[in-house]
């Protein structure tokens, strides 16, 4: 038996090594999930849905249609472990040729020369940097160089159950939801909603892993014309008047029972889809899914709309980040592989509209202006988000900073800390991280 297994293993190995190798195999490292089962052979991108489906179909299409003999080989990594594994590849030497990266992570990699400068190669391949909206161009540019290719801007939105809002009398004559215009109005409308419907006014992940808390807090600070980090990047500006107002409002939302503090991310989404939540605070990535679920008729959510994150403090602003494509630096990479990697990026850029179908905002002016983009469902409802999208200052170690902010902010409702206590501790710990940055 063992001999048999050994023999079959050997023959399998030989089969693998005998498989035809392409002129250039491009190792693609990404999150967005693994859906090779559903979309492994789909090359018609319009038939794919969701982040995973669309990127998988785009990859298949490139592999099927490119004329340079390139083949993109995908390695999917679970989102929670993605950056740890990507970092590790630099030590193990198994460096990918193309890797997805958030804008917030880029500073760590650029500072240590871990990414291939892309402005020249991409321009040469025909990518027009002038076509990018300013926020996208900013996301990838350090000095005069671009270290990545922008793929989307994703931002915080409010997803609305219009039926519940109507029940609470929070819908205008045109049938659009009435959203609060100030902190006091938020609490007031929330109480009104709760009384009229008996349901949760705001759905938002609230467990000890809740990143949404930080996104809401950041947006509220920016809405006051303030920022989270001092311009020199050396100190946090969290324990400030703006920070205090933002944290107090979030705390108040929980104290008034407007948010269900027992919900994690999946729980908050599920409750919204079940029709148990008026407003869901979540990102652009949810639009496509919620829309199709509401249209599908099986979910408790029947009437779905989207809205820009409400301006509660005067200056419109909503948290945002971006997915970027990078080519990790690797001195041993063959020129033809790098060329194939750049060709793949160019292909993705050409198909930026397809990616925008996920709900994310397109990074290309020409796509945003196109008729097909405008025809996508709900886009007009959150068109303004493209202009109010606000990113975290470009400092290193933003993952550590975000984790500290999650711990400190969620401690308000999980551990009974006051906003003041949470902010003092948060400020001190973020300062400590910033001090380490070289």
């Amino acid at each position: 038996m063992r001999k048999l297994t050994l023999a079959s293993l050997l023959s399998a190995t030989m089969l693998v090594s005998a498989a035809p190798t392409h002129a250039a195999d491009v190792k693609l490292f990404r999150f967005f999930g693994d859906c090779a089962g559903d979309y492994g052979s789909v090359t018609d991108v319009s038939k794919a849905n969701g982040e995973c489906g669309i990127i998988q179909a785009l990859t298949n299409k490139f592999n099927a249609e490119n004329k340079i003999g390139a083949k993109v080989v995908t390695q999917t990594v679970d989102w929670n472990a993605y950056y740890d594994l990507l970092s590790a590849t630099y030590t193990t030497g198994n460096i990918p040729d193309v890797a997805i990266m958030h804008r917030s992570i880029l500073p760590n990699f650029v500072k240590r020369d871990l990414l291939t400068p892309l402005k020249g190669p991409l321009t040469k391949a025909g990518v027009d940097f002038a076509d990018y909206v300013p926020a996208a161009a900013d996301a990838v540019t350090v000095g005069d160089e671009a270290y990545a290719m922008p793929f989307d801007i994703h931002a915080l939105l409010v997803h609305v159950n219009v039926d519940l809002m109507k029940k609470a009398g929070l819908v205008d004559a045109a049938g659009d939801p009435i959203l609060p215009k100030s902190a006091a109005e938020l609490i007031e409308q929330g109480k009104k909603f709760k009384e009229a419907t008996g349901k949760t006014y705001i759905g938002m992940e609230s467990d000890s892993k809740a990143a949404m808390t930080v996104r809401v807090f950041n947006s509220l600070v920016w809405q006051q014309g303030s920022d989270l980090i001092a311009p020199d990047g050396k100190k946090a500006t969290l324990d400030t008047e703006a920070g205090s107002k933002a944290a107090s409002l979030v705390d108040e939302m929980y104290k008034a029972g407007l948010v269900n503090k027992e919900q994690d991310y999946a729980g908050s989404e599920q409750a919204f889809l079940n029709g148990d939540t008026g407003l869901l605070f979540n990102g652009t990535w949810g639009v496509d899914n919620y829309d199709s679920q509401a249209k599908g008729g099986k979910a408790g959510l029947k009437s779905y709309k989207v809205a820009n994150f409400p301006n509660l403090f005067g200056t419109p602003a909503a948290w945002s980040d971006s997915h970027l494509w990078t080519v990790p630096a690797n001195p041993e990479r063959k020129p033809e592989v790098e060329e194939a990697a750049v060709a793949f990026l160019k292909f993705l850029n050409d198909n930026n509209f397809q990616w925008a179908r996920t709900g994310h905002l397109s990074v290309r002016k020409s796509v945003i202006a196109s008729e097909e983009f405008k025809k996508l469902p709900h886009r007009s409802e959150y068109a303004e988000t493209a202009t109010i999208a606000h990113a975290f200052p470009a400092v290193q170690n933003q993952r550590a900073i975000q984790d500290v902010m999650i711990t400190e902010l969620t401690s308000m409702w999980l551990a009974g800390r006051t906003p003041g206590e949470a902010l003092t501790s948060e400020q001190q710990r973020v300062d400590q991280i910033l001090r380490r940055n070289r």
Partner: protein
Amino acid sequence: MTSARTSVAAAEMNTHTGSRRDWIVAYLFLLPFLAVYLVFLVYPLFSGFWISLHDWELVGNFREYIGFQNYRDLWADVLFWKTIRNTALFASITVPCMTALALALALAVRRPGRLYAVLRGVFFASSVFSVSVVTLVWRMVLDGDRGLLANLFRSVGIRPIGFLGEPFWAMPSLAVATLWWGVGLPMALFIAALNQIPQDIYEAAELDFASRWKVLRRITLPGIKRTFVLVLVLQIVLQFQMFGQAQLMTKGGPADQTRTIVQYIYDTGFRDWQIGYASAMAVVLFVLMFSISMVQLWLGSKED
């Protein structure tokens, strides 16, 4: 006479070369283990200590010798002390509970018979799962909104408890999941030890009308003392390295109440790339576990 003397000398030489050959064979058999032990345990231990004397980044080329600065920083690191307290609390809940539970289960299911064989398999089965599966299952049980217990509580009209979100409940919840996951191995060790106690002692006790409690205290427990110490040491070493449960179920929250040493080491090394500082923590953790285990072993041998 001469020939007799020669044969004695030859025989002596034979034994001599024989024993030398035995030694060589013994070392040859040991060699694979020693090689693996040296490469994967001894070398990393020293290499980790060496790295801990540097400001050393995981990614990129930055390396600077800073002597014991990382250890001085650790001394002043409030979060590090908190993770030590959390980990010690976790171990102080899980180690005694695990040992007691494993022993109780072993006593209950060590009997012959098909039913008990099945039960042994059932109790051992949970150890086979990976930490991601275990935490997934327990999140489904403990989730304060949609969890099994939350629904049970609601059905009898009690407000559900956010087991993973409330500071008081978070650590005990992780401990419960850990007990369910890890009880199989110590149970198996106890069953093996129990089966080695000669049956005639029990029979003699029965003839003397010894009570079951007396039998447990005077025969069973002394009979498995060495295994008891082994289980304790193994559990201490294991529970001090708790990581997956906290990372996947609470991410160290709420308010850092369940953040453990290994989780802090992981974040520092892989998220923040400060592998020098992370190594210093790892060295401290090693010393801590080593000392506790030594004390435990010493206490165990003292009573012999």
